[in-house]
């Protein structure tokens, strides 16, 4: 056996000891050379064969898929909104600008309560808004949120669009904005 072959086998032994028997995992720069060695040398094939059983043992593990709860949580996260985002796209709703949303809700609430304020001796009305009331707060470059009350929902909570819900949510049910914001 030549010195070159001895060196090649030593390198193959080191590579296989680190990366295993599957040549796809071997360093790309050495893969072709070592594959040629494998084809030509019974000693090389014996070296690789010794590592194959560990590869097979490691392959017994199956990792879990992400839970539906995690997937739902991540896909509900608020995204940043750039200036060139659609300004009035159907179904588009961001919950990021909580401050603006709260301001919108407050504006609607104050306006509605002022409009429906009873006479001093009259009964206090239930603070609700009629179906179809839409309030928007438009800043310099974006619409922050639309509050759509599809039924006589209590003022101050945003009724979500149908596509905004993850599994387990109920369309039309008021939600807490804090629930869908990631915890810092």
């Amino acid at each position: 056996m030549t010195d070159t072959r001895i060196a090649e086998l030593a390198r193959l032994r080191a590579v296989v000891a680190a990366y295993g028997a599957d040549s796809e995992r071997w360093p790309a720069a050495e893969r072709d050379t070592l594959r040629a060695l494998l084809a030509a040398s019974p000693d090389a094939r014996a070296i690789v064969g010794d590592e194959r059983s560990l590869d097979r043992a490691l392959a017994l593990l199956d990792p879990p898929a992400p839970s539906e709860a995690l997937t739902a949580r991540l896909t509900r996260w608020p995204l940043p909104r750039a200036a060139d985002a659609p300004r009035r796209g159907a179904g588009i709703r961001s919950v990021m600008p909580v401050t603006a949303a709260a301001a919108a809700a407050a504006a609607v609430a104050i306006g509605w309560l002022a409009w429906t304020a009873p006479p001093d001796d009259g009964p206090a009305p239930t603070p609700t808004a009629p179906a179809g009331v839409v309030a928007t707060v438009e800043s310099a470059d974006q619409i922050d949120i639309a509050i759509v009350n599809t039924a006589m929902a209590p003022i101050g909570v945003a009724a979500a669009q149908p596509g905004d819900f993850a599994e387990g949510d109920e369309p039309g049910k008021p939600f807490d904005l804090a629930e869908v914001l990631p915890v810092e």
Partner: protein
Amino acid sequence: MAPRPALEPHTPPGLGAASAEPTDDGLIARAGRGDRAAWNALVARHLPDLVALGWYVLADRGEAEDVAQEAFLRLVRKVDTWEPGGAQLKTWLHRVAVNLCIDRKRIKRAAREPLDSDAAMSVAAPDALEAFDRRRAVARALRAIPERQRAAVVLVYYQGFSNKEAAHMLDVGLEALESLLSRARRALKERLKHVIDDIGVAP
């Protein structure tokens, strides 16, 4: 040839499969403009691998999901400033996740089995029980080696990264990566001798 672990990402329910295969950079750019579908596609594409990475390294599904969530949280903060053509998203996410895993001080070494207990209950035949025992032995052996060695094995063996990519994620040179892998496999062989012997005589 040893069976190679599946590297194809799972598709979470309700997200659908992307047929046009948009690039990560393209999806990030759209997500940065508030495109929910693009963000969901990124989640569908990379979340399974991140959870798997965390599960292999931390041996705990709950902690694995925490790590994956934290990695995506860091991504969502970057989507509007992400520079296309720079770091590959998959490599970037895995590097973040690996560091999160290694930084975690709370490694639950014996609290929870990494294998799904339902899987244990669902098998009844002796062959299946034997297979479950082997899987449990592999999980325990993996859990027993040092974290950086484990991370190296997970990145190269289970997740199919090249030696250069794995070295970059672990912030080590190629020789150091090879050393981590060699020591890991040597330790695993010692711990899994009975499993390897069984597999060796299996048809």
